[in-house]
C-alpha cells in the first residue's frame, strides 16, 4: 500500500516537473515570431508578437475586448469568435462556454495563445473602445454605501460616448492582491462633460473593486479605464418613457437626463427611483428641483421599508408596486430599466401588464 502511494506521488511529482519545464520552455525559449490577427475579414489586421494570449495581444494593439478578471480565465467576459488559428479548446475554456458557443467557434480570448496567424470576429463597436488614464478629481459620499467618483481625463483628454454607456475601471493590485481586474460602471455625467468620467459606485461586501474605491482610492490618484461600452441608450422615438432604477442604477439616468436638458430633448418621462429607507436616497434635492422646473419630467422616489424616524410621507412599497399603481395604459410608452436581474424581471412583468411590449423595453441588467 505504501509502495503504491509512493509510486503515485512520484508519478505526480515527475509529471508536475515536466509540465512546469514545458511552461518555462514555452515562455522563455520558444519563439513564435510575429503572428497576424485578422479581425472581421480584414477590417483590421494586427501584427503581434506570438506567444501571448489573444486578449492581451489585442489589448496591446488598442483593441479592448471586455474583461473583468484581467485575463485569469474566470469571468468569461472576453469571448471572441475565432474562425481559424486558435488551436484546440483549452480545459480552462470548456466550462465557460455553452455547446452552441463551442459549435460557433467562440473562445475565451484570455485562454487562447497566439502561436500562429489567427482570424477572429468581434463586434465592430469594440474598435471605438479606448484606454484612458486620468486623475481622481472627486470622491464624495452619496449615501452610507454609495460614492460618486469623478475622474479628470488626462490621456486621451476626452471621451466620446452616448448617455447610457459604461466604462470598465481598471483596479490595480493592492493589499497583496494578485493583479489587475476590471469592473463595469455606467457613466453618470452627460457627454458634454467629455473631459471627465463620473460614476456611481455602491460598496459590495468583499468586492475587489469597491473595497479599493472605498478604502484605498484618494483624490489625486491616477486611474485607468477603458470604454465606452454598451447598448443601453434612449431610442430615437418621441414616445413617453418610464424609467425604473434604484441605488447605483441611477447612474445612466443621471447622464441621460442631463443630456436631455442640455439638448432640449423634451420627451415626457417619469423616473421611479426605489430605495429601502431614507438613508439610501441620494440626489433627491437635485431631481426634485428638476421635476419642478421641467414640465416633461416627473420624479417619483419610493421607499420599500422606511425607518420610523424617516417620517416618510412619499410613495411606499417595492418600486415595481409603485410603478404598477402609477401607470395606467403604457401602450404608447417605452420602459427603461437599470438594476439587478430580479428587479428588472419584476419590472418587465409590470410593464407587460401595462401593455408595454418587449420591443419597447430597454434595460441594463446588473449581471
Amino acid at each position, binding site marked *: 500500500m505504501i509502495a503504491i502511494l509512493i509510486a503515485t506521488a512520484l508519478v505526480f511529482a515527475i509529471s508536475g516537473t515536466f509540465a512546469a519545464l514545458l511552461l518555462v520552455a514555452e515562455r522563455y525559449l520558444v519563439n513564435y515570431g510575429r503572428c497576424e490577427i485578422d479581425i472581421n475579414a480584414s477590417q483590421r489586421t494586427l501584427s503581434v508578437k506570438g506567444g501571448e494570449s489573444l486578449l492581451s495581444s489585442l489589448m496591446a494593439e488598442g483593441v479592448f475586448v471586455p474583461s473583468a478578471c484581467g485575463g485569469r480565465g474566470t469571468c468569461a467576459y472576453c469571448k471572441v469568435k475565432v474562425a481559424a488559428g486558435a488551436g484546440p479548446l483549452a480545459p480552462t475554456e470548456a466550462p465557460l462556454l455553452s455547446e452552441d458557443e463551442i459549435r460557433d467557434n467562440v473562445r475565451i480570448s484570455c485562454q487562447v495563445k497566439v502561436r500562429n496567424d489567427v482570424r477572429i470576429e468581434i463586434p465592430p463597436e469594440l474598435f471605438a473602445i479606448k484606454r484612458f488614464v486620468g486623475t481622481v478629481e472627486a470622491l464624495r459620499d452619496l449615501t452610507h454605501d454609495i460614492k460618486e467618483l469623478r475622474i479628470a481625463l488626462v490621456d486621451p483628454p476626452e471621451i466620446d460616448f452616448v448617455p447610457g454607456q459604461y466604462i470598465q475601471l481598471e483596479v490595480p493590485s493592492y493589499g497583496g*492582491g494578485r493583479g489587475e481586474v476590471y*469592473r463595469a460602471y455606467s457613466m453618470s455625467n452627460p457627454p458634454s462633460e467629455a473631459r471627465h468620467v463620473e460614476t456611481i459606485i455602491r460598496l459590495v461586501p468583499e468586492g475587489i473593486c469597491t473595497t479599493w474605491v472605498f478604502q484605498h482610492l484618494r483624490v489625486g490618484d491616477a486611474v485607468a479605464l477603458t470604454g465606452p461600452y454598451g447598448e443601453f441608450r434612449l431610442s430615437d422615438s418621441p414616445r413617453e418613457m418610464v424609467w425604473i432604477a434604484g441605488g447605483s442604477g441611477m447612474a445612466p439616468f443621471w447622464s441621460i437626463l442631463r443630456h436631455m436638458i442640455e439638448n432640449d430633448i423634451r420627451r415626457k418621462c417619469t423616473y421611479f427611483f426605489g430605495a429601502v429607507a431614507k438613508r439610501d436616497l441620494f440626489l433627491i434635492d437635485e431631481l426634485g428641483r428638476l421635476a419642478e422646473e421641467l414640465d416633461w419630467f416627473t420624479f417619483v422616489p419610493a421607499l420599500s421599508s422606511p425607518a420610523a424616524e424617516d417620517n416618510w410621507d412619499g410613495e411606499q412599497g417595492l418600486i415595481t408596486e409603485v410603478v404598477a399603481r402609477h401607470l395606467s395604459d403604457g401602450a404608447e410608452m417605452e420602459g427603461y430599466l437599470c438594476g439587478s436581474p430580479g428587479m428588472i424581471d419584476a419590472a418587465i412583468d409590470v410593464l407587460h401588464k401595462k401593455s408595454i411590449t418587449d420591443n419597447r423595453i430597454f434595460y441594463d441588467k446588473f449581471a
Partner: protein
Amino acid sequence: MKEMPAEDALRRKMQPGAISGGGFLGSDARSLQEILDTDAAAIAALGLTHLQVAERLGEIVRAAMAAQGAPAEVAAGLQAVYCEARGRVPCPWSDGMFEKGQVEITDTRTGETLLCTPLSVHMIAAHGFYQGRGSHYRIEPGRLPRMLALPGE
C-alpha cells in the same frame, strides 16, 4: 498530507484578490479536503445533506431577491435582506457564474445573522463547500438548523 496539484490550483483561486476581495478560505490553514470532510461530517451529524441545506438556502435567497432590498419574512422569526451588486462572480471550480450581491439572514428573536450569496448556495450544493473558517461568508454547519429553520437542532 501534501495537497495534490489540482487542489493547489483550486486553493489559488480561493485566495483573496483572485475572485473576491476576501477569498473563500479566511484564516483556515487546513487543506481543502480536510475542510470539506469536516463540514460533511458535521452536516451528516445533523441528519442533513448538502442538497437539503442548499435548497433551503436557495429558497431564502430567492425570497430575499424578490423583495428587492426590503426585509423578507422567510420563516417565523427569520428575515432576509438582499443587497444587490453589479456583475457576476465565477465559482472557483469553474463550473458557473453567479450574480453578485449578498443576503443577510437575521433571527429577529436573537439578532443573530448569517450571510450568504448565490455563489455560496451553489458551492454547498455542488461541492459541499461552506468556505474556510474566518471567511466572510463561512457558514458553520452547526448554525444551520437554527438560522434556516431546518430540522436537526
